């Protein structure tokens, strides 16, 4: 499903080179739920950005869903992303659209037939427990609800891979456990999940395979 071969990433800030990842290698199998943890600046977000081809590695190769991401053209990147759901710390909901419209928007831009859109959008909202709030606008949602809406948007295409970058970062403990519960449910359906979090307690409570990053390297791979 995911394979990294000696991946390094260096950012250039003017003349200064800032290494974010150093020779990272690992493999994640289909259906796995992997927690990516480590302190802020450890390279978690950089790693996830490489996985959905928002950026390219400086060295090494990234394979996702059987395809090497180095050298992909624009249309191939778009095709890859159709198989990946992504959730961020901020929900990134469109403020002028309702929860339902936010979820349906993804299907509409991908040309899904109209009759399928409603059923699939409401199905995704049901999975995250947000059916009752379908007509609410993002400003009317709690942070936990907004994050669940973002999750619904990420899974509405039923992607085989879900990347979650600090989805509980802005939430209190009970809301965070709600989101984690939803992620577990999604994972139980066979979706491969990579969850990045700096919250060590949360990572430990999940009891899943955990990759710990430090200084841009994988310092621990356990579980």
């Amino acid at each position, binding site marked *: 499903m995911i394979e990294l071969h000696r991946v390094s990433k260096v950012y250039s800030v003017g003349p200064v080179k800032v290494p974010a990842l150093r020779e990272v290698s690992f493999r994640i199998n289909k259906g796995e739920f992997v927690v990516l943890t480590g302190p802020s600046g450890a390279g978690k977000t950089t790693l996830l950005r490489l996985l*959905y081809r928002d950026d390219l590695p400086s060295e090494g190769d990234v394979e996702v869903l059987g395809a090497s991401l180095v050298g992909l053209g*624009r*249309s191939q*990147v*778009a*095709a*890859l*992303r*159709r*198989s*990946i759901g*992504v959730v961020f710390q901020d929900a*990134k909901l*469109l*403020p002028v659209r309702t929860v339902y419209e936010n979820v349906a*928007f*993804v299907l*509409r*831009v*991908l*040309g899904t037939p109209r009759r399928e859109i409603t059923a699939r959008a409401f199905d995704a909202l049901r999975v995250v427990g947000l059916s009752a709030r379908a007509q609410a606008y993002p400003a009317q949602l709690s942070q936990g609800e907004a994050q669940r809406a973002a999750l619904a*948007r990420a899974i509405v*295409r039923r992607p085989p891979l879900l990347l979650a970058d600090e989805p509980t970062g802005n939430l209190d403990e009970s809301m965070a456990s709600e989101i984690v519960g939803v992620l577990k449910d999604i994972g139980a359906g066979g979706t491969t999940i990579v969850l990045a979090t700096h919250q060590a307690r949360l990572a430990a409570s999940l009891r899943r395979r955990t990759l710990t990053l430090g200084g841009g390297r994988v310092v621990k791979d356990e579980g």
Partner: protein
Amino acid sequence: MLGFLVGEAFRDLRRAGRVAVSAVVLITLSLAALGGFWLVSSNIGRAVAKWRDQVRIVVYLKREPSAGEVVALLERVRAMPGVAGVVFIGKADALRSLKQVLGKDASVVDQLPANPLPASLEVTPSATAATPEGARELLTRLAGLPETDEVAGGGDWVERLAQWQRLLATIGLGVGAVLAVAAILTVTTATTLILHARRHETEIMRLVGAPELTIRLPVLLQGMMQGLAGAVLALGTLVITHSVVAPRLEPLVNLTLGLSQIVFLTPLGVLTLLGGGTLLGGLGGWLARAAREP
């Protein structure tokens, strides 16, 4: 999908608000100016074409030739390049024509001791001699005939009218072009605002792997919609102006240019204006997109 793209384009237009309205107004002004000059120019063009057909060159002869000399002279003139036709008018024919023109005052002619009018040739230039250069060459050739006393006529004034027509068309194009550039810049500004307003949508669209066409087309479409709306308004303005002004000007135009009516733009002209407006708007949208996405 098409419904979605058009819907997004309309949503973008609403977002642009007053700037989009300004862009539509500027496109209307530029196309109305262009169309107005075009309309005037094409009507003058019709007058020029009509008068060109009626241009005659009169070659006054030194003396009235005999019947045999007339046949030979006519053959020589017909053989000249740039001559479509030639008619001999004898002294008696000329006097008859003068009497017809004078009407009830024709008796004045009878007081004359002798017929003072010269015999002449009335030459119709061919299309090749309808240009200023062609006409000048033909006049020189006719003046070079040994029988020629004087050459009169020609299409100088028609050419002057044609020059006015070209000048008007150039001014129209100039004014239209300046306004068109302003319109493109306004559409670009409106589109830049739209791109800023829809940056979150664009981000999500890219994130979920939407095809580039789906991302770019609404922006191009909203620009084209602004252009088309401007073109329709410009055409409406021209139609109304034409229907109000033309009947009032037609008597004067008939008297001066010999045109019985001022015609509106041809269907091809109307389509060109509509297409031009749509293109202007699309170009503005495309420029804004290109400026933001190298």
